[in-house]
């Protein structure tokens, strides 16, 4: 193994490569174990974890250099050689640690603060553990990465507030109703923008929605997707009082709901709270509706503004996130090198022991007449000589390797360890 920092992170993400390249490089979950085995057996990679998501494909390895991974990606036709030079990023040592910590903390994600990446990295780590391509160094690295991600989330606002229109809509519903389980939803119109919000609400446990459209046929088609109930627009008056949450997404150029419609519905609902989310452009719900007691109206502009404000708040915290990541990275780097230090001390002693024993064997072969006592004296002298010669390097190694991460590499090179 190369004595210099041998932790390498190599890959592409949404910033470095277009989606077509990422698609080509993507490794399906079922194929990750065989890729890991191949890297270890055919490309001389010591430890390896493969992370493949919709926005990134990364290899975190212990290797002599990035060359084995370059060969792997080119030979297996994930990338052309020129693409590798242009699109792939390579981090080594402390930078590789810092990069991984940023990825797991969702700082490097397309949506800063998103929560999926932590689960994806944990899954990648778990797979590598099962295949057996994780040993002590990557184990330390990933455990520290998960710990750091937890610190980033708890000590900053990076994960606070929702940043997509759908999730802001759900957050709004939770502010009105608390738990959303068993709440009823009415979707007016079949616009695609409502789909995300409907799915997000269904994930929170709302009942199967009413889907209202101009024609029963169209309403039935969309209702079938959600196991919901189709309604024709002309029957809206009867259905509106049954809904706790109303999503409006049509292309109509006029208001579909006004204060009179809502007053009628609220009487029938016994004035129970009602949330209306109007994501149509132009608006389909008269803004005057918001003045009614227990009726809460939000339109697409307001939702987008809330999402943008939340995203800005997350980004304001990025500096603090990087401070946490930088400290944690240095701590992890030192810890990984301490592990290497222990190995280096053992290797150095072993190397000196080998030389001592070889020279003693040669000496005793040439000196036949030595008795047992004389042999023991010579062996003890050789051992003392070895210990005195090693004392200086080992003391310096223990003192400096934890603080000066290049010192260890220099000692290894000096004594030819790991070659």
């Amino acid at each position, binding site marked *: 193994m190369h004595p210099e920092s041998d932790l390498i992170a190599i890959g592409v993400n949404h910033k470095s490569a277009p989606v077509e390249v990422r698609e080509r490089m993507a490794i399906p979950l079922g194929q990750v174990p065989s890729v890991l085995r191949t890297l270890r057996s055919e490309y001389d990679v010591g430890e390896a974890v493969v992370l493949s998501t919709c926005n990134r494909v990364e290899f975190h390895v212990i290797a002599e250099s990035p060359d084995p991974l370059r060969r792997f990606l080119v030979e297996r036709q994930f990338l052309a050689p020129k693409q590798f030079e242009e699109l792939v990023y390579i981090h080594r040592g402390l930078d590789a640690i810092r990069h991984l910590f940023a990825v797991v903390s969702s700082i490097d994600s397309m949506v800063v603060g998103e929560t999926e990446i932590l689960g994806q990295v944990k899954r990648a780590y778990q797979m590598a553990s099962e295949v057996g391509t994780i040993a002590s160094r990557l184990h330390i690295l990933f455990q520290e990465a998960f710990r750091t991600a937890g610190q980033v989330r708890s000590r900053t606002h990076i994960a606070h507030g929702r940043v997509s229109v759908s999730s802001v809509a759900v957050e709004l519903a939770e502010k009105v*109703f608390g738990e959303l389980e068993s709440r009823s939803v009415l979707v007016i119109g079949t616009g695609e923008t409502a789909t995300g919000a409907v799915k997000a609400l269904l994930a929170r446990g709302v009942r199967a929605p009413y889907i209202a459209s101009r024609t029963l046929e169209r309403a039935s088609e969309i209702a079938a997707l959600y196991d919901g109930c189709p309604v024709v627009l002309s029957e809206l008056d009867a259905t509106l009082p049954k809904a706790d949450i109303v999503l409006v997404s049509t292309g109509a150029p006029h208001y579909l709901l006004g204060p009179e419609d809502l007053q009628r519905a609220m009487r029938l609902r016994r*004035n129970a*709270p009602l949330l209306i989310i109007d994501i149509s452009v132009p608006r389909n719900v008269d803004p005057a509706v918001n003045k009614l007691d227990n009726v809460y109206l939000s339109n697409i502009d307001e939702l987008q503004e809330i999402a943008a404000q939340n995203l800005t708040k997350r980004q304001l915290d990025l500096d603090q996130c990087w401070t946490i990541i930088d400290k944690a990275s240095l701590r992890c780097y030192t810890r990984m090198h301490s592990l290497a230090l222990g190995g280096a001390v053992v290797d150095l002693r072993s190397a000196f022991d080998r030389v001592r024993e070889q020279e003693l064997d040669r000496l005793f072969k040439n000196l036949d007449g030595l008795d047992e006592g004389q042999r023991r004296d010579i062996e003890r002298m050789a051992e003392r000589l070895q210990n005195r010669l090693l004392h200086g390097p080992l003391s310096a190694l223990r003192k400096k390797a934890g603080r000066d991460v290049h010192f260890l590499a220099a000692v290894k090179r000096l004594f030819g360890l790991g070659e």
Partner: protein
Amino acid sequence: MLVDHGLMFTTLGGYALATVWSELGVVAPNRFRTWVSTVLVALGMVAHTIALSIIAARTGRLPMANLYEVLSLFLWFAVALFLALQLWRPLRAVGAFYLPLVTAVAAGVAALAGQSAIDTRGRSIIVVIHGGTALLGFAAFALAAAVAVMFLIQDGLLKRHSTGRLGAALSSVSQLEGLTYVIVGFGFISLTISLGLGIYIAGQTVGEWATQHTALLSIATWLVFAVLFHVRLTSAWRGRKAAWLTVVGFAVVAAVFAVLLFTADTLHGFLG
């Protein structure tokens, strides 16, 4: 200083600290802060319970013989209801709105320590129940008012599409409105019992309950909450209107207490 007086100051300290933690919990919400606040309130409650028990043991009667004791009992009910609510249907940030009032009342109680008490020998159990249910009812209205204020704030934030820590710290409007109604209902039943017993006692003692201004003010309070209960039950008013009525009702309750402090009538003179 008697032991119960010392314990009241301990109680005050517990509630004051709990208030601080609750306010911090609104600025930077986390479960630990909520837990600490609730534990501090519970510890204050324990000290308070011991204090009241000492009074009862020392005097051989329930503590309702002067303003100090009555206010102390009111405080005890107020905190007991708060803890019961937190155990049954925990509301986020309710301590931040309710505990300042609790702390203020606790400070008043601590300041009144040492007040002389009337001779309550011969006082019937009906009088004790009348007093106890009145205090329980008033405590429920105080808690309901705090929850109603939280509703008004959250409702206003939602109407204005406001984002920020306060909106995130508060429970949903649905929960706040629903619980206000339940607490008001509980207080209303308690006050109804108290009022009924009070009119009976006044009739037996002074002959004309209508001459007792405490009775008239209590009826006024009862009427406010009767209207509120009715409109909420029929769903004629929900949300903001009902919340404002709850707050007005509590203001009437506070007015009744203030009047008692300065102008006690025949039957409630021991409170002056």
